[in-house]
């Protein structure tokens, strides 16, 4: 039923978009492909899970705390791993490999500490009934996802376009050296960006954990792949791209499962990805230009 599928697609696509936004933000401002973004996503989910099961926090509060802690985690990773690489002007390869190392390390640690089994949020975390509106069934999770996703995206957009901070970040995205010359505290803002990106990733993790009711140490990997696909589709370093790419992927997945078969789900998304790679490798909104130093 079309409108139901549209709703599902919107919901799924929004989560993809939120995740991809964090990823693309780091690429745009720090100039780095942060492959630990998937693991931060996973940690966000576990943090919320622990807050709900151990401290019995209401889910909304748990979400906020998880967002903050994920952001902090991202800052720590930036400070420990990415900062020394920036300081010595390491080639692009270095942060990629280093963040892969972080990803492997944290996944393994969580696997050891929490076990590899799939965990679930306890029943009652979110009201289980869905709201019926005509023919549509909307679950609370979906409402939550869309509300939060919209809030975060609008918030980010406002930040980037209307605030001093946003202007500074865009200046850094153009050219860190020029921005520094203008008196912008580049290093501090790098941490700030990491925080924002980490929060976005963590929030996406909680939302996915809630909507699929499955949390595992390995959930970061497939999400990271999707994030990469979104970034390539939408263009790297571009916020609109992350948004549209995320929604596009959500729609492609939902509709191919609904009208074709689930076998094709991944194939369609990646088939399109491949076409884009062949025709316009910089994605829909991406810029091929190498960033000025």
């Amino acid at each position, binding site marked *: 039923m079309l409108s139901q599928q549209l709703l599902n697609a919107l919901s799924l696509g929004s989560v993809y978009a939120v995740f991809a936004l964090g990823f693309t933000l780091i690429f745009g401002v720090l100039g780095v492909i942060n492959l630990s973004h998937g693991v931060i996503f996973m940690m966000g989910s576990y943090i919320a899970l622990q807050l709900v099961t151990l401290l019995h926090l209401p889910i909304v509060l748990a979400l906020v705390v998880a967002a903050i802690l994920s952001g902090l985690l991202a800052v720590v990773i930036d400070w420990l791993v990415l900062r020394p*690489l920036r300081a010595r002007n390491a080639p692009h390869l270095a942060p990629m490999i280093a963040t892969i*190392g972080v990803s*492997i390390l944290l996944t*393994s*640690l969580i696997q050891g500490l929490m076990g590899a089994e799939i965990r679930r949020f306890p029943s009652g975390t979110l009201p289980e009934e869905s709201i019926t509106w005509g023919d549509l069934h909307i679950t609370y999770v979906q409402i939550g996802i869309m509300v939060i996703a919209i809030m975060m995206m609008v918030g980010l957009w406002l930040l980037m376009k209307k605030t001093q901070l946003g202007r500074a970040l865009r200046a850094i995205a153009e050219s860190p050296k020029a921005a520094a010359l203008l008196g912008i505290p580049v290093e501090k803002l790098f941490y700030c960006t990491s925080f924002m990106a980490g929060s976005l990733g963590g929030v996406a993790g909680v939302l996915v954990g809630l909507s699929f009711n499955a949390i595992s140490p390995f959930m970061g990997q497939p999400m990271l792949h999707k994030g990469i696909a979104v970034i390539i589709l939408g263009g*790297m370093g571009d916020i609109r791209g992350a948004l549209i790419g995320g929604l596009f992927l959500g729609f492609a997945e939902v509709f191919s499962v609904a009208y074709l078969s689930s076998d094709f789900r991944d194939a369609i998304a990646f088939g399109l990805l491949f076409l884009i790679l062949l025709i316009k490798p910089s994605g829909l909104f991406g810029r091929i230009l190498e960033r000025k130093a």
Partner: protein
Amino acid sequence: MLEWLETFWSTYNTLILSIGINSLLALSIALTLSCGLLSLANAAFMGIGAYAAATLTMQFNCPFELALILSILTPVCVALLIGLPTLRLSGVYLAMATLGFGEVLRVVIMNIDFIGGPMGLNGIPNLTSFWHVLAALLLVVYLLWRLKASKVGRAFVAIREDEVAAKLMGIPVMQFKLLAFSLGAGIAGLAGGLNAHFTYTIGPNSYAFENAVEILTMAVFGGANSLLGPILGGTLLTLLPEVLRGLKEYRLAVNGLVLILVVLYLPNGLWSGKSRRIKKSMTSVQG
């Protein structure tokens, strides 16, 4: 003595063959890196080689050596095809594009039932011997050694350093990038064909992003600038998980930690070829 060798071999043959295969893979990516190309597609090319060879031996009763040759040629053809559009990209864009290609390939393979679909191919004949792997490794090392000493090797490094300046030296940059890319693909494919025929089974998930990353790590860890470095990296990183077996789930944590530490403190890998290069050019002017 012979008995000891036989027992040693029967316990450790998989490990030793894996070391050889991983060294080949590390060399394949070091080659593309030497031209400034960060290609994460080599795991995919390995997969193409593996599937090509396995299909030939299983479905068409092809002699092993011929299948191996095709495990080199098939990925080379694919590399030439996708290289043309993607090699226009550079740096992280190229890395992402090659990664995307790898993912696409994996999904494509999963959906082709003729070659096993998501279950992969099982019951691949055990045809790879120690000598096959050794021969492959020696041939590839020889090839890369000769390449580095020729104008082609120099051109690769020039392209890596400064593409524009390289063009103005009369170097047809795109052609050479394609060369590096497809040679790397061929070597990875060979590794794949060899690997398939001692692991009995292959599946689309053996050639995914994680594997591409592992290969890259081995090359970088060992030192991508030399010939010995990737082999060293391949050997050590194949042995490391075995050595760490006792740590169970935390085994991979050590892998991750090693990666981070190497990138932060050993940027040129364990064995960088620099000091040897200076000595080499000094002697050859007088020679």
